[in-house]
């Protein structure tokens, strides 16, 4: 009975408030954790940038690029164990929470949500992509993922200038933005020591400007291009936390699509797939909260449903709870 009551309570919870506080808490952990000696490792599956000297945990791409850039004779012999063990830790982190890392933990994602909140205050309308541009833009993240993995390997083989070491990090807006929160603005400079360095640092600044402008007018603008999101999607079939949809209960009302920050069409339109997680999904659960149909959308951990779309929850969130009860 007790458990049932708690479950009922969860169904009616204000997911937005819950998410806001979790995001704030994890933002503080990841960005300021170093001040209180928090260190959750260097295999974190979100853009918690290692250039921030007080980071409480570091983005896995930083160590991945570093490890893969080793000379091949080491990479493919003894050092491969290091790569595999770090990868194992990354997978362990990831499979528990799945893409909820994006919606709840990523400092860069949190920043974008705050920018969106600011935009709302200023009563400036937001933009969306057309269906076609959405489809082509979402491929960019896989190109970035290729850069993350392939370029260090080429350095290790001696085919690429070592100046490209950590190439993606140099391009990533996280490198410029995250350290600013601890008062370090040193990343906002152009490195003139070589042509590659000039290119990479300029690209980094340009991408950061695009990040700010873009996320101001488009919700979660950067996440469409995020290679970590692409990496997540590859391993999400093995994750414990799942977003599931019961197509038979779906009426295709489109409420879920309208609340989706990532413009995922399938959430409303696909009534065949059980596992409705898509590569752009940030697992924010707004869709589940917005769904008026009983049990049409649900969040499972292993096989237990922890959060479901319910009529009661929908009514409460929409503010007409009294009428239905």
């Amino acid at each position, binding site marked *: 009975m007790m458990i049932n009551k708690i479950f009922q309570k969860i169904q009616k919870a204000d997911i937005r408030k819950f998410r806001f506080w979790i995001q704030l808490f994890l933002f503080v952990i990841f960005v300021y954790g170093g001040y209180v000696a928090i*260190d959750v490792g260097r295999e974190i599956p979100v853009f918690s940038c290692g250039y921030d000297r007080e980071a409480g945990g570091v983005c896995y791409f930083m160590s991945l690029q570093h490890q893969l850039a080793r*000379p*091949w*004779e*080491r*990479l*493919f*012999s*003894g050092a*491969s*164990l*290091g790569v*595999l063990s770090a990868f194992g830790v990354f997978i362990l982190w990831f499979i528990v929470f799945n893409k909820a890392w994006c919606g709840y933990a990523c400092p860069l994602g949190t920043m974008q949500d705050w920018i969106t909140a600011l935009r709302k205050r200023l009563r400036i309308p937001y933009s969306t992509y057309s269906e076609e541009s959405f489809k082509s833009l979402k491929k960019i993240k896989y190109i970035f993922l290729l850069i993350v993995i392939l370029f260090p390997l080429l350095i*290790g*083989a*001696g085919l690429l200038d070592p100046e490209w070491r950590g190439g993606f990090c140099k391009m990533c807006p996280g490198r410029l933005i995250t350290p600013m929160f601890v008062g370090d*603005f*040193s990343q*906002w*400079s*152009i*490195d*003139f*020591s*070589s042509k590659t*360095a000039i290119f990479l*640092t*300029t690209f980094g*600044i*340009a991408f*950061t*400007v*695009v990040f*700010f*402008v*873009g996320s101001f*007018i488009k919700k979660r603008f950067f996440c469409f291009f995020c290679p970590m999101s692409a990496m997540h999607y590859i391993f999400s079939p093995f994750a414990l936390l799942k977003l599931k949809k019961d197509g038979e209960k779906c009426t295709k009302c489109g409420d879920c699509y309208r609340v989706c920050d990532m413009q995922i069409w399938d959430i409303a339109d696909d009534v065949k797939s059980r596992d409705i997680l898509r590569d752009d999904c940030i697992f924010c659960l707004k869709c589940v909260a917005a769904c008026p149909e009983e049990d049409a959308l649900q969040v499972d951990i292993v096989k237990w449903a922890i959060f479901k779309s319910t009529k009661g929850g929908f009514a409460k969130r929409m503010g007409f709870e009294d009428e239905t009860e």
Partner: protein
Amino acid sequence: MGFYDSSKENIFTTALFWGLFWPFFIVTTLPVFGRIFCGICPHGFLGKYITNIGLKKKMPKWMQNRFIGVMLLVIGWWAVYYMFPGVYRTPFGTAMLFTVMTLLAFILYFFYRDMSYCKYICPIGTALRAFGKLSFTSFSTYKSACSSCKSFECAKSCPYGLSPFNFEKKHSMDDCTLCMECTHSCEAVRFTFVKPGYGIYQKFKTLRAEVWVYILILAAIPISMAFSHGLGRSKVADEMIWAKTAAFFQTFIDFGSMNAVGLFAFLYAVLFSAAAAMVGMFIASKILKKEYGTVFYTLGYAFAPLFILASMAHAWEFFFTSNSARIVEGLAWGFGMNIDIDPFAKRGDTWLEVFHIFRWIAVAWAFYILYRRMEYIEASKIRKLLAYPFAGLLIFFFIGVNSYRSYILDTYGRAERSHSEHSMRAKTLFQSVKADEVILLQKGKDAASCAACGMKLSRFYKTNHAAIFHGKERQYCSIHCLTEEKKIKNMNLEQIQVVDTKTLKFIDAKEAFYVLGSTKSATMSEVSKYAFAREKDAQEFVKAFHGEVVDFSEALRVAMKDFEDMKVYKTVDGETPIYFTDKKPFIQKGKMNHSGMGGMMHGRDANRVPSKKVWLVTGDDITHPLCVENIQGRFFVTNVMNEVSIPKVKSKEGCTAISFEMPKSGYYKVYYIAEDEHSVNVAKYEFKRFDHSSDEKYDKEMMRAKTIPEVPFDILRIRSKDETFYSRPTTGEKLQFKVLKDKKPIKDAQVILNTQFGWQKHATTDENGSVSFTLIKDYYPDWDKYNKRFREKYTLTARYKDVEGKVYAMTLQDEFRPSRSEYQSYAYGMLITLLLLIVFGGGIFLYRYRIHKPFKEVRIDDDK
């Protein structure tokens, strides 16, 4: 092969078998096409005809055992291979084996029907069937056509007595060899491409022999190879359990010509692998609460990719490093020609490492198959999850063996190769001769090596020199080493002799004719020098390979040029400071030093303790330091805890070097102290070792600069307040030093700072013994040569004369890097930010503005 004396080892047989047949026909085709090899097997080809005219009896039950074939392969071929490594390398050995197998095959074909030999006795038949499961081709029939067909033409036409119409239902092609006989009788037979390993994920009737093929072949080939060829060739080979067991048995059994170590390596490999598989599966079966046999033979299919992909890694690498060239050479050699081809790649080329990835693919695939095969066991998810690692114990064992081998080879190194196994051999040079043609004049344990450099004399025999030193013969690899001892070390060498390139006999060097600068390779020098007894031979050599003929004294003069850049300081006067450097102090001709990590072994392996090597040098020019000889002083090394120890000092070629291990992150110091009643000379080197992959904390007290009681005079670099492991001195930074005499700060000591590019600054210590310098930028290369990580060296020299007139001199060498502000610009960063902000922000504003505008205009028009 018949071209030549077949009992002798020849390169063609090895190349053909190991270079072509093995990597391409077996290892590569299996996971691709499955048993396509059987289609071209000469036994099977003739067997089809022999069976037709044969007795067509049914094979007796005891022979219908696939383990016969498996055991023939594992024991008859591989165990013998490890016992007598040479046996299959001769055409004779190979021919004998194939003759026996062929006769056996023909007899069995004649007696029994349905090609039973292929199924049960053929050593590779079952193996191919087993590994064929991984292939991504499938052979089956169109179901719709078969369901209505009652003629079974296909089954009648099959020489192996199989039923192709059942293949799809059984998810197995059974013993199908892709002979395609059935296609003649029915059109509903199809050959398709499927996902790799498709068959192995399906439910099919498991076959015990197949699982054992995976385990035994994995043990017999990759794991035994790792034991006997990988670990067995490391420097600690004698410590391995099989070597010890062999040594133990050798005390009372005479193994004769048998390679006992190889045999035990093989036995242990089989024992360990079988144990890993059986114990793991046993525990898994207990967890799953299922019968052991079911679990073992259902999940055992997961071991399939391990061998085949690991072999692919090995075979391809060897194909590129040596076999490709061996095949061409071997072919030419078969026709009596003698040519020398360079292989596509050298051993140790980085790109070859890409083939190692097959091993990791194998492991990943094996784990995946295990996961898929788990479906066929009925148990709860939790039980499956718990049983999974145990069922995969053999896979972990395989990873373990591979990692252990790289660990051992990285840590202890490869032992010197004395014989060449597996067709790998050191490339012979023009100056190399066979061991039995070498004349060794010197005696003793190291008689076969150069007296000066230790290189193998036989490898450079045609440039060998010899001389008598204090009545004892010394033999050198080349005139280079002779010159080194005669001219540089000023050893009194008499009766110098040289090898005549033509006759390979020693002759008097003073009467020899030297050919300098020919196109044939040189030994330890840029200029090749070959000697001849007769002038005519020398002239002929010049005609063929260019160069010029000179006498011994000229040859010696040219050899001396090798040493010109290498100046060796003989004595140390009081004025020139002595200091340490981490850069090897002399530059040999054609052999540039790396300006980088000089002697720093940078954590090659996580388990290896990094070490650093420094040389004691002198001279005014920091960039071209000179070695110090005649060292009378003492050396000390301190570790991160400031604990003093006495290091090993090595002298080579007149240079003195100290190397020390750095197990932890922190500061390590090396001191050199030379003392007499008038003066004290101290040289100091301080190095901060930091491994950023470890979680070591920067302990300020531990990192504080400290002196040691053994040194009477010291300079300390005072750490700044916010120094961490990551800090490095850069230009523009103010460095603080403190000069101590008998552990007390002293006033009025003269301190001079010298940088690599010649900037100099003098200062005098204050009451606290302190002195400070601001590092200026004096590194101005061309922009395209600019290195932001450039480590500019500086030396600090302190001098002090006490009241008794005793002179104290001290040096400290360190380095600094360009500061970020030298090459990074905020201004440009901000400019670009602003520009882009205006462009993008403005662009979006305009875009939105325009979208709204036409709407307004329409309204205005309406009003009018």
